[in-house]
């Protein structure tokens, strides 16, 4: 569709519609802009002296949604104390602090731009944006500047800021992470110091180091190890105690035992000036184990940050109509059942309710995943969170807050999440037995030596416990998972739940949804058939002209048919039927066949047209047919529908090649589903399925022992996504689907699913290798220790080498050709 001389907007790089002449002078050159929004933002950037933004940016800017004056007035509501209470700290004081989340950030330069611009406002004390999460913290003096002015300044440069209220869980996680980092730091620093001193102890005595120096070094090592054991290692002891109280033998018991007894023995040796000291081993244990725990915690916490707050689904403000007919802007939190609301075209529906007046079409893709809006008129129900597309509606509120359908679904998801069937981690099985084995060997060794040389018995037992410490074992899984997850993230596949990779590797069946998953979920034009009265190109141009300014997905698709078209005059929209306008002096109509046939001139649909329509319907069973008519009569028929994703066929073939059984379960009508299945070579498929039926089908498979992976995008898929052992959501899908899924395909490229599955299987293989090595080391070292041949340097060496090997082996998972950094959508 691009012509050689196509002009692109300097700001957002979208094509500039012909005939438009927006431009902004940037450094002496008039750069073209595609719309008033881009022009306004670019001008604001130039006026603020921040042109460096265009130099720094690595991605095109997002086309800014122009905030209508109405929305700008709504920003003032954020100054109200009741509203500020939930997301502003110090509300009521002069210096306040708030958390915001920014929308529209595409690269690092955007962060730089917003930071510079906002910091320049008088009254702003600090403003910083987190590059990865796009969350911002602003501190300002309320006497000099109001929050709404800050939000308006952000909007002026093209970003939208939402107040952000981190829920309690996130604050807990933040504290957890901070504590873990501090413990890790103390352990790391202590370990390094003690190891340096330990080297002196290894070689010193043989080289004639004086005993008082040896003692000194021992005492210093003891001193440094104290905080490492009691501060950094505190969690091991606490967990072990908890496990013992519940008569369980978890991983922490041998760790606590090893750390505690080794430290005690070494302290004893220091005091009595005899025996061996193992302080470096102790600090190494603690450090390696804390590292592995930290990696696990990071993986767990990633879920919360990957998906932005679901609260954004419901709008913040609504327009309430009072009894006397006047309107007021209120926050959604203040709505009550019985309120009458006016919903403008393009605005989301604030709460569940019923249409009182008006006739429009509503985009319910959040609920059903369908991209075609459904028409609604007086008496029809509206669901909060859906978007009103065409014309204004007046509605009466029936349910708010926790009673809305959306809240109900969220609760359902949370419950399903808690009951999710997950496969046990490889390492957690048999841990108890391993621990018992160690204790047994330690006891036996001590017992044996007690009979031979009592003085040595204690040290041998300590040596056994030292080598038994499951350092490498603890590192085996987390390091591998972190490496694999990092690779996949660069690929564009986000892993949000810890078990996802291991479960994906074990999957036997993979279930696909159709609309939005295998297909684009967007309307495109399949075919155009012209009656011949006018050339094809002219018909396309007329259609594009009639649909100027339409927000309807069908309209957007038709607009893409032609770049150049005559201007439309006297454009009128007939909801549910079509659009009429005067082009080049004549009246044209586009829409349903009856609507178009009503045109005053021209004959109605003839037999030829009927046959063509039927032909189109046969070729595209799920397509919608749109007719174009004018003074010459009926001019053309357009078949519009959803298109298959380009990578779908390759992905399905690759997955089948890996031995997975492919299924297609869809809620769509039988013919489109059959056609899609045929195109992709899927033999097991079912159509017209309700979510409950999909759930039942998956449960049936699971009962036969299958491990099911489910790929979907709509809210109607959400309960099913929770039920499958591992679930993958498309990034273009609904937010609820993304929140409930274990993995998100950020680039919407299905081929990456095959790569991810391959990588998951490698991960499992490498974890297996790590475990074998770690256990092998333990098995070999144990007899060495039991025989009394272990010395501190041998123990330290063995432990660090085994851990190093595990880490290096896991790093193999980061290899491979991940195509360069892809910008997630």
């Amino acid at each position, binding site marked *: 569709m691009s012509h050689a001389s196509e002009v692109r907007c300097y700001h957002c790089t979208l094509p500039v519609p012909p005939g438009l002449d927006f431009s902004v002078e940037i450094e002496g*050159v008039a750069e073209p802009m595609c719309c008033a929004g881009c022009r306004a933002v670019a001008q604001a950037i130039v006026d603020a002296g921040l042109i460096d933004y265009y130099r720094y940016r690595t991605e095109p800017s997002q086309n800014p949604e122009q905030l209508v004056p109405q929305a700008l007035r709504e920003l003032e509501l954020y100054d109200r104390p009741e509203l500020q209470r939930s997301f502003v700290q110090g509300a009521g004081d002069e210096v306040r602090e708030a958390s915001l989340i920014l929308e529209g950030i595409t690269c690092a330069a955007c962060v730089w731009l917003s930071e510079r611009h906002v910091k320049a406002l008088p009254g702003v004390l600090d403003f910083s944006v987190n590059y990865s999460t796009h969350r911002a913290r602003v501190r300002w003096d309320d006497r000099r500047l109001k929050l709404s002015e800050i939000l308006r300044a952000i909007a002026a440069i093209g970003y939208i800021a939402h107040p952000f209220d981190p829920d309690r869980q996130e604050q807990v996680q933040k504290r957890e992470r901070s504590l873990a980092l501090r413990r890790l730091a103390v352990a790391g620093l202590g370990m390094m110091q003690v190891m340096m001193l330990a080297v002196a102890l290894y070689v010193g005595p043989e080289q004639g180091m004086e005993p008082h120096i040896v003692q*000194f070094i021992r005492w210093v090592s003891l001193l440094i190890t104290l905080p490492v054991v009691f501060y950094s290692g505190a969690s091991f002891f606490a967990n072990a105690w908890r496990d013992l109280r519940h008569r369980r033998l978890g991983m922490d018991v041998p760790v606590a035992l090893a750390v505690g007894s080794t430290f005690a023995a070494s302290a004893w040796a220091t005091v009595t000036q005899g025996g061996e000291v193992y302080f470096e081993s102790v600090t190494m244990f603690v450090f390696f184990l804390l590292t592995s725990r930290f990696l696990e915690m990071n993986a767990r916490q990633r879920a919360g940050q990957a998906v932005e707050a679901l609260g954004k689904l419901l709008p913040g403000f609504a327009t309430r109509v009072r009894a006397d007919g006047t309107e007021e802007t209120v926050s959604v939190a203040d709505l009550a059942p019985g309120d009458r609301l006016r919903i403008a075209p393009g605005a989301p529906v604030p709460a569940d309710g019923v249409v009182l007046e008006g006739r429009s079409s509503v985009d319910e893709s959040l609920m059903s995943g369908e991209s075609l809006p459904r028409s609604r008129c007086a008496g029809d129900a509206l669901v909060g969170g859906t978007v009103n597309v065409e014309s204004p509606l007046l509605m009466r509120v029936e349910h708010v807050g926790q009673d809305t359908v959306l809240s109900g679904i969220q609760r359902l998801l949370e419950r399903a999440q808690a009951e999710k069937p997950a496969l046990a981690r490889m390492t957690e099985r048999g841990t108890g037995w391993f621990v018992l084995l160690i204790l047994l060997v330690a006891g036996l060794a001590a017992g044996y030596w007690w009979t031979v040389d009592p003085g040595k018995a204690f040290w041998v037992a300590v040596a056994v416990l030292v080598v038994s410490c499951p350092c490498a074992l603890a590192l085996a899984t987390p390091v591998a998972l972190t490496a694999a997850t990092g690779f996949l993230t660069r690929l564009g596949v986000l892993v949000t739940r810890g078990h996802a990779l291991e479960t994906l590797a074990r999957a036997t069946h993979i279930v696909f949804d159709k609309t939005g998953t295998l297909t684009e979920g967007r309307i495109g034009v399949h075919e155009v058939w012209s009656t011949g009265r006018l050339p094809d190109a002219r018909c396309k141009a007329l259609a594009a002209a009639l649909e100027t300014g339409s927000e309807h997905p069908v309209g957007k698709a038709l607009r893409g048919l032609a770049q150049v078209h005559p201007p439309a005059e006297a454009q009128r929209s007939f909801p549910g039927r079509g659009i009429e306008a005067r082009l080049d002096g004549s009246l044209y109509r586009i829409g349903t066949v009856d609507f178009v046939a009503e045109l005053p001139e021209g004959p109605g649909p003839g037999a030829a047209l009927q046959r063509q329509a039927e032909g189109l319907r046969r070729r595209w069973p799920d397509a919608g047919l749109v007719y174009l008519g004018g003074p010459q009569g009926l001019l053309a028929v357009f078949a519009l529908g959803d298109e298959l994703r380009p990578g779908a066929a390759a992905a399905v073939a690759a997955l089948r090649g890996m031995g997975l059984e492919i299924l297609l379960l869809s809620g769509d009508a039988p013919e489109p589903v059959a056609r899609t299945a045929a195109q992709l070579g899927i033999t097991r498929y079912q159509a017209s399925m309700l979510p409950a039926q999909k759930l039942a089908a998956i449960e049936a498979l699971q009962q036969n022992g299958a491990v099911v992976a489910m790929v979907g995008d709509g809210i109607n898929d959400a309960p099913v996504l929770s039920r499958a052992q591992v679930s993958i959501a498309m990034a273009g899908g609904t937010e609820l689907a993304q929140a409930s899924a274990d993995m998100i395909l950020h680039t919407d490229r299905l081929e990456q699913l095959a790569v991810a599955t391959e990588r998951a299987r490698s991960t499992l293989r490498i974890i297996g290798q790590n475990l074998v090595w770690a256990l092998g080391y333990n098995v070999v070292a144990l007899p060495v220790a039991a025989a009394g041949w272990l010395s501190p340097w041998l123990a330290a060496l063995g432990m660090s080498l085994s851990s190093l090997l595990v880490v290096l082996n896991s790093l193999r998972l980061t290899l491979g050709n991940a195509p360069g950094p892809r910008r997630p959508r």
Partner: protein
Amino acid sequence: MDILFLLIPLSLLVMVVAAGAFLWAVKSGQFEDMEGPAHRILMDEDDPRIPHKRTADRLKEEDR
């Protein structure tokens, strides 16, 4: 070798200072954002008086 009685406690002092600095960094939230500082350095404000090759031509090279 008695110098070690001075040197080792000195190194301990350094370690304590290092630990303190790290703990302060964690507490002031510097570990929340790992990518930011890398970008910030590249985009720091240069002295506006330094002449640089900043013309429309260079933009045309980059974009087109």
